């Protein structure tokens, strides 16, 4: 049974997921409220990325239930996707398209305009490289292009998987601005990080994932 409290951005109950015989998540439960940015830490392979992929409907849970703003992950997957922005360590851009074309493609898919796509490219700091193909971009530029896609979507819930990877100080600031802007709109964020120092200015609560279960952490882990 899922709960539909509007204040809850994420309400996950005993989420479990296995790949073959290996259980990665073993009953993870967590709540993320509107206005909260929750930092999630854990060892490699503890299931942090799997948890985010479950919450954004890219994977189906093997057991347990979860809802995003009251929408069930399985029954209301379309509604969940409309509210969730997933920022993955893999940029997911097309190498043979320019930055502008990548953004405009994303804009069409999201029902936005070409002007909004161009503005998102500018905001991501790629104005000078907007008409260059993504094939020649550095890792940081590719991540900025992926961030432009997130700007276009402007979701109520951010699911960020290692969002600071490959970013310079300005890029890290851009990620944190995005989180702050989402929180100020009444949204929420769940941020999976190893680099806790970069996330510390915006994260309001810390959790840890150990042995496939979520446990609270007092303060930013070191």
């Amino acid at each position: 049974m899922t709960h539909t409290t509007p204040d809850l951005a994420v309400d996950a109950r005993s989420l479990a997921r296995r790949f073959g015989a290996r259980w990665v998540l073993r009953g993870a439960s967590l709540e993320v409220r509107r206005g909260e940015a929750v930092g999630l830490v854990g060892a490699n392979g503890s299931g942090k990325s799997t948890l985010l992929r479950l919450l954004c409907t890219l994977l189906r849970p093997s057991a347990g239930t979860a809802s995003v703003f009251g929408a069930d992950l399985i029954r209301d997957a379309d509604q969940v996707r409309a509210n969730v922005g997933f920022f993955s360590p893999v940029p997911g851009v097309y190498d043979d398209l320019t930055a502008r074309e990548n953004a405009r493609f994303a804009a069409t898919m999201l029902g936005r305009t070409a002007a909004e796509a161009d503005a998102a490219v500018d905001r991501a700091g790629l104005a000078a490289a907007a008409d260059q193909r993504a094939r020649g971009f550095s890792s940081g530029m590719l991540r900025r292009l992926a961030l432009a896609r997130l700007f276009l979507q402007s979701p109520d819930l951010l699911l960020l998987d290692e969002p600071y990877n490959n970013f310079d100080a300005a890029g890290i600031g851009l990620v944190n601005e995005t989180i702050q802007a989402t929180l100020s709109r009444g949204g929420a964020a769940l941020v999976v990080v190893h680099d806790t120092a970069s996330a510390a200015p915006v994260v309001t609560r810390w959790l840890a994932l150990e042995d496939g279960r979520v446990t609270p952490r007092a303060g930013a882990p070191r």
Partner: protein
Amino acid sequence: MAFADEWARARAIAWKDLTTELRSKAGFNSVAALAVTILLLFGFALGPDSAAVRAAAPGALWLSALFAGVLAFNRSYQVELDGGALEPLLMYPGSRRSIFVGKLMANFAFVLLLMTIVIVVSLVLFQVEVPSAWARILGVVLLGSIGLVTLGTFYAAMASRSRAREVLLPLLLFPMLVPVLLAAMQATKALIGGDLLHEAGAWISLLAAFDVIFLMATFLAFEYVIEG
């Protein structure tokens, strides 16, 4: 989401697939080279008997399109997998069927271009004169291509979720394509030979029926096969 939005999304996917293919070129060049190589191999295997070569032309044409098409269908999802773009694609709101329709349109354009090359090479290599029923043959090519692309795009999506996708796609696709290929080959053969027994119409009707069934079934089932 409204039909107009879904249609815009499908067109955007088709544009993106064709643009990336046009710019990389490697995909189409290798697929077209494979198709021509298969035709040449058929020519060598059949030897100098010109009557035998002409009789085998419809089969050679459709089989070379089939084998080359498998490469093309695999590539249409490889583009998504290479840069990790499949996840964002699946995360966009709205029906995932627009992904199928977009890829279907791009693959159809790709296969039609491939068929143009294959037909021209076949006419020269197999010494087939342009038949009087060329317009009906073009119709068969269109219908056969629709069947090939529909099943190819669908099963490539299914295979894309597997690590053994290159092997899996032909294993899934070839048995399902037998009715389409049989009807397309028989209709082509009858029309090249002047359709003396008036059998081409029946084969064309059968081909059209398979196209409609496969289009409907794959459109409805696509959301389930693309799930993670």
